[in-house]
């Protein structure tokens, strides 16, 4: 597919890299020559310098033949104008990043007039992800599939956990027959386990759990189930604002610590009585203790500086039992960050990039079966939801144990007419099913690709 990415900022470059890896023809536009140059040296993409909302620039970048234009510059207005312009001259889909809350709220009114196929807000999406994590206290990571009916929960196996040393195949009988371990992260490795593998302490294991089994499963595993009642947020940026709004709806108490007085006043005005706004430096130890960091149920670091967030979470880990969530924008040293006890790591740009990639994947409809949605679990693993719309030869109606599935691939959930179940070897895939596959093979686009050639 021919894709134009306008804006080479954080999101733009992650997108370009990912799309380039998935064999799309990517052209990037930015007004900063140095950024383009850096991009050009790293990726096999084409670059154009200029204003992405200009007709001339878009034309020379080949918008006429493009299939998709993604506008992710730092300005909402530029993004919207760019999409409008692209739609006008080319016959392409458009995605815009819209940050301003007032815009985001009201954009639906003019979405069609602007010719937007999709709009995304990184801060909003990040807040939503954090809110979800807050609501499932024991999960390190949480992904929702099948329109919320299936959850993938990441759990860290602590010392003395009932799961330590358990064989994958035994989990069904000993814990619950509807859960399935589908990813094990051990050290730096990511394993898609088969029945004979063992779980060890220190692993991060992701389970597929149907939503209605959630509480029971957690009780059985012995994980914390005490719901989170109050959250302390360091840094009062946009994400914090969205998060406060969302948590209020879930009746969670929120305390925001923000350095800037003006910003505090604004937050207080917008959030009225829903949150306690503290004007002060979140890196001030005394202040943190004064506001009760030891007793908070969850601590979320959302300041503008990655280093500060990491330090804060490390400190919170030291002095409290709180569930930790850390915003890290620049995940360059991913491996190092992973080894730190800073809880769940949230990166708005990656979340946004993932949403857009998901859109691009589902965009390429192949007859027979197609990708309904795509979730990037981490940089190695993807969960893909396929819709089986016709009887695919060699896959449909064959018991799963007889399918020659690729290695490092697991079928973890089938949704048949609204009934979600975790399949075993005797089950079959049938036409009309929604099938979720977890795999380390990047770029699967078709159900046919899950079996060995």
């Amino acid at each position, binding site marked *: 597919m*021919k894709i134009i990415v306008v804006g080479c900022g954080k999101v733009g470059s992650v997108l370009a890299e990912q799309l*380039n890896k998935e064999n799309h*023809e*990517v*052209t990037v536009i930015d007004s900063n*020559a140095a950024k383009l140059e850096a991009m*050009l*040296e*790293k*990726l*096999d*993409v*084409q*670059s154009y*310098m*200029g204003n992405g909302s200009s007709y001339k620039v878009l034309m*020379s970048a080949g918008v006429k033949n493009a299939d998709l234009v993604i506008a992710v510059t730092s300005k909402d207005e530029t993004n919207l104008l760019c999409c409008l312009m692209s739609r006008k001259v080319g016959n392409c889909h458009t995605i815009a990043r819209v940050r301003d809350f007032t815009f985001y709220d009201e954009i639906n009114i003019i979405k069609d007039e602007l010719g937007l196929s999709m709009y995304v807000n990184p801060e909003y999406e990040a807040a939503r992800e954090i809110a979800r994590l807050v609501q499932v206290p024991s999960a390190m990571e949480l992904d929702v599939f099948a329109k919320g009916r299936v959850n993938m929960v990441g759990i860290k196996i602590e010392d003395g956990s009932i799961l330590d040393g358990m064989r994958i195949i035994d989990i069904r009988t000993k814990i619950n027959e509807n859960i399935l371990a589908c990813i094990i992260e051990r050290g730096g490795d990511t394993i898609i386990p088969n029945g004979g593998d063992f779980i060890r302490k220190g692993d991060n294991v992701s389970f597929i759990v149907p939503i209605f089994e959630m509480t029971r499963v957690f009780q059985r595993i012995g994980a914390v189930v005490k719901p989170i009642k109050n959250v302390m947020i360091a840094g009062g940026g946009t994400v914090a604002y969205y998060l406060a709004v969302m948590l209020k709806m879930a009746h969670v108490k929120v305390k925001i610590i923000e350095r800037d007085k003006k910003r505090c006043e604004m937050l207080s005005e917008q959030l009225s009585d829903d949150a306690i706004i503290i004007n002060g430096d979140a890196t001030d130890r005394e202040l943190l203790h004064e506001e009760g960091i030891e007793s908070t149920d969850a601590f979320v670091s959302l300041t503008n500086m990655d280093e500060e967030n990491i330090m804060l979470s490390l400190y919170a880990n030291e002095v409290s039992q709180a569930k930790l969530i850390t915003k890290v924008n620049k995940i360059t040293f991913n491996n190092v960050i992973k080894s730190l006890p800073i809880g769940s790591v949230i990166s708005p740009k990656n979340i946004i990039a993932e949403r857009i990639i998901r859109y691009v994947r589902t965009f390429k409809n192949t007859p027979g079966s197609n990708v309904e949605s795509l979730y990037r679990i981490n940089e190695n693993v993807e969960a893909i939801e396929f819709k089986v719309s016709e009887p695919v030869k060699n896959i449909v109606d064959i018991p799963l144990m007889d399918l020659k599935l690729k290695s490092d691939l697991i079928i973890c959930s089938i949704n048949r007419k609204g009934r979600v179940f975790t399949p075993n070897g005797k089950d079959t895939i049938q036409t009309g099913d929604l099938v979720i596959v977890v795999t380390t093979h990047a770029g699967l686009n078709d159900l046919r690709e899950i079996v060995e050639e």
Partner: protein
Amino acid sequence: MNYAVIWYIISWVIRVEALFMLLPGMVGLIFGERSGLIFFPLAAVFYVLGYLLGRKKPDRTRFYAREGFVVVSLSWLVLSAVGAVPFVVSGTIPHPIDALFEIVSGFTTTGASILNDVEAMPKAYLFWRSFSHWLGGMGILVFVLVLMPIAGGQSIHLIRAESTGPQVGKLLPRMQRTAKSLYLMYFVLSIVQFILLLCFKMPAFDALCDVFGTAGTGGFGVRGDSMAGYSAAVQNITTVFMLVFGINFNFFFYLANLRFRAAFGIEEVRWYFVIYILACAGIFLNLKFVGGESAPDLHHIAFQVSSVMTSTGYSTVDFDKWPEFAKTILVGIMFTGACAGSTGGGIKVARFVLYVKQFKVKAASLLHPRSVSVVKMDGQRVDSEVLHTANTFFFIYSAIFAVSMFILSWDNMDFTTNFTAVAATLNNIGPGLAGVGPARNFAEYSYLSKIVMIFDMLAGRLEIFPMLVLMAPATWKRNG
């Protein structure tokens, strides 16, 4: 430095070259020359050698600008060394340095020869040296990129180091497709010229070699008198195609995509034609009023200017006999050269346009010390880094020129000969004036001078920086 990748790419270069050696072998078969058959065993040997070198695919395929420069310059050295082997083995050019000079002159599309009697050379070998123009014109690594399985984002470093001009970009998002489309345009234009030449009754073999020389802007002829012996129609076709291959290939890319405004909007191309017309006019007037010709033959002038400006180096007349002003013009356009991103040599029109524009900016800043103005080209601001590199290029170019002159003068030829010999090799033209004029050749120079000129030709073709990086000690130091 990622040596594994460097070896791997070079192994590909050797394999590709070995495959191309089959072509002159076939020419030998067709013309029944026994000496030409030697290309077959040589092709086999080099293919196996390349295969053995590249057997292990490197685990780490990441490479950077430094590796790009080194790969390109080393590849060209290897390419030349391998290309010279058939001449030495067959004894057609017995001395290795002579053979190397001849083939480097071929691959760098220079067209300077050390052969005293071209027509005595077997056809297979004439074909091989002409074909080296064609391959060297667009670039061997661009060709390898079309085939090579590891062509990631960093391949831009290869194209940057090998292609000509101050700013090298991509035509299409994918490097591999860019390389393919470049070769496609190159191939199509060559075929068109070949068919036209055949229509005007040029012998097929001569036509093929003419196309190679024109397309690569090389200039090896298959006859002793270069192009003088062919009909005016053939010469005119060659004139036009030399000019065509001297144009920036972006131009043809835009034309092929029906973006005419963009094509004719390229500033460099416009200047290229302006310079061409001015040079022709100047020579015409000089021949008429000083040379004593009542009606100077315009088609020879057009041919010669086209030939020298695009750095091809064919000749239809002995321009060494022209009056001084005309000769000076010819030497002048040796330096301006063709467009960036073409197969031609020289300093490139694009750089001169940048120099003139910088001069204007500088002059303005002298008059109004606080004025701010930027250099723009094709409506885009030119980054100061690009300008700086272009200026440095000119300085180093002059330095290499001077040092080469000093070394060559030891051979005790006259000043004009030495000057134009360096100009003709460093700019990849071919013939110069006086002792290296179109009717003469480079055989009389000593081997030391020939080695200097081999370096000049490679430095000229690769636009200096890759060769400098190759020779800089810091390149080879750990963490240097």
